[in-house]
């Protein structure tokens, strides 16, 4: 069947099997670090472009027919080339790294009916995911790995492998690295993993509550303004998602969390003040406040009312915010100690 298609894309065109074989040999040579590294690099780049053009087409040509793509994918699985490529990503040149990501992401989204063969394949080779996650350790490949990881995170089966692995906790370090582009890329991936599949992440957060939130605490106290701001915003989103009801209940029962939010309400950054407000409001709105929470609020009742009255008064346009603020002030005014009742 393949021979019938061959003439359609010209004689010089390599078959999927040939181009995968050529690429694998070149990557292996690169890995071994033979004397002819430059030649190997050139071959890797050339064959990657070749595969990329087969999958995406170019300005002048259409992508290859489905059957060719299917063969290509099959060759990639059989040869174990996807793992080999991500393992050697640092050795591939700048443009080649991006080509790897584009090839990977295209193959990943392949579908046969309702099945996703590449996703199934990666489930049997989780090293691919772990290698990609550890890519954030290396400046030169971090963004490329991020591009691939976020695509993987769209698939629940792959997201599950990643969040339940020990390596997941490395993200708490990656999102705080000093290079802005890498840290914020890692944060996007981290957020995707925790928000894309609601039920999966709710279960994960419940089961691993202590470990996750002790790590999360560090992000909220980070020296890096962007880390603090982004993690606070994500915390608000997580707590207010109805899937995470159990997690939220647990979070707002802990007086240390309330203290942290009250301190963040007073941070210099207006943005952080505002995001902290959206977490703080959940503590106040809780109809069943545990005693320690109630105690803190009562102890600071007058101060809180005064503080909130003066809080972000320039947001007059934001109706929802003003309604929420008025509601909080009312709630705090009406707080009574348990003993008085």
């Amino acid at each position, binding site marked *: 069947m393949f021979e019938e298609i061959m003439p359609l894309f010209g004689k010089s065109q390599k078959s999927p099997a040939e181009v995968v074989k050529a690429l694998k040999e070149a990557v292996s040579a690169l890995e071994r670090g033979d004397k002819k590294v430059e030649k190997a690099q050139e071959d890797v780049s050339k064959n990657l472009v070749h595969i990329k053009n087969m999958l995406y087409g170019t300005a002048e040509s259409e992508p290859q027919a489905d059957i060719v793509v299917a063969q290509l994918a099959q060759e990639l699985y059989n040869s174990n080339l996807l793992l080999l490529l991500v393992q050697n990503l640092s050795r591939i040149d700048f*443009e080649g790294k*991006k080509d790897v990501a584009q090839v990977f992401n*295209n193959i990943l989204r392949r579908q046969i009916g309702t099945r996703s063969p590449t996703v199934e394949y990666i489930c049997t080779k989780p090293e691919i995911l772990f290698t990609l996650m550890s890519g954030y350790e290396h400046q030169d490949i971090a963004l490329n790995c991020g591009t691939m990881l976020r695509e993987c995170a769209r698939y629940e089966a792959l997201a599950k492998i990643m969040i339940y692995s020990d390596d997941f906790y490395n993200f708490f370090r990656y999102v705080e690295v000093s290079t802005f582009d890498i840290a*914020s890329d890692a944060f996007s991936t981290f957020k995707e993993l925790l928000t894309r599949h609601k039920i999966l992440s709710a279960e994960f957060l419940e089961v691993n509550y202590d470990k996750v939130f002790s790590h999360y605490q560090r992000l909220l106290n980070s020296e890096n303004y962007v880390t603090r701001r982004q993690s606070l915003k994500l915390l608000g989103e997580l707590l207010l998602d109805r899937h995470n009801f159990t997690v939220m209940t647990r979070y707002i029962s802990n007086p240390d969390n309330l203290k942290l939010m009250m301190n963040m309400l007073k941070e*210099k*950054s207006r943005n952080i003040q505002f995001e902290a407000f959206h977490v703080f409001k959940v503590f106040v709105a809780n109809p069943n406040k545990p005693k320690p929470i109630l105690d803190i609020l009562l102890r600071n009742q007058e*101060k809180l009312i005064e503080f909130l009255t003066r809080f972000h008064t320039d947001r007059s346009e934001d109706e929802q915010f003003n309604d929420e603020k008025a509601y909080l002030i009312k709630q705090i005014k009406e707080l009574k100690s348990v003993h008085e009742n």
Partner: protein
Amino acid sequence: MYDINLNNYTSGMTLGVSNNGTSTVHLALHKATKSYVVIKKYFIDDKEPEDYSFIQQEIITTRQLQHPNVLPYLNAFVSGHDIYVISPLMSYGSCSNLLQEHFHQGFPELAIAFITKDVLRGLDYIHKKGFIHRALRASHVLISAEGRACICGMRYSCDVVKSGKWLRTIYAFPKSSTNNLKWLSPELLQQDLRGYNEKSDIYSLGMTICELANCTVPFSDVPDTLMLTEKVRGSTPQIIDKSTFPVDVMDIEESGEESNSNSKKNIKAMATRKFSEPFHAITELCLQCDPSNRPGVKQLLAHSFFKQCKRTNNTLLSILKPVKPLNERFMDSVEDQAMVVTTELENLELESCQWDFENI
């Protein structure tokens, strides 16, 4: 090499404000390497999450591009409440600054040929990597100390390779593009079901060529709605020389008492100069209303307009000669030292309120 500690840079004059006021651009000296760099400082604390994600996107996109005609970002980091981006100094600044400060009659044709050729090379790379720039204009073309033109302003770009798919047509309107409307193609501005593709950048290149030649972008004095109607109707802006100069305008300008002698002189020079046929032709090609009639980058690079670059002994640098590069102006301008210091001090609001957490 370019580290992330602001104290290792001596900051000089402020070069400008960009991205609709979300960032300021400063000339600086990297102490360790004694090299000049440009530091772009983004204020993000008062920005909505959407604006923040634009800035993030711009930085991540630019960090993944490497081409001699695309401005690289050497490093990006957070300090205080701001994001700082380090890029190499482009000594002659942006083409729009050069127009404002030195070339009041527009650039000479040869200079435009050199600049356009470099821009096309950069654009070719950007397109091949799956981006549409969507904001090509003279202020997004910078000139280096060696006379090389570089494209910047990737903030407005869009990625056509998404989730493993190459989108052949884009429909999304670039956000916060209000200031770029004059340069945008009719198909992009129309926002209809036909969408647009990378040919939209070719139209913007055509507008930029007019801007470089005429010192102002076409339609600069026309309200946006009328500008859109004109573009969609197929009215093709032109580079101004004696063959295209509108005679009636000249009469009006001649009689106008209030216009000062300098601008009169400039207008007269523009009305009497002569641009080459290929120059008129390439501009017209870029500004074709129907995107399918516009050539691609490759075809444009082969256009006869660029022959003059080879026939001359001149370089872009020799044409720019009277202009003093920015780094030479550095020493007279170590004025904004405050940039580093203020970061830590700004927004310092002494909050009198203290929470009472004792024994809880």
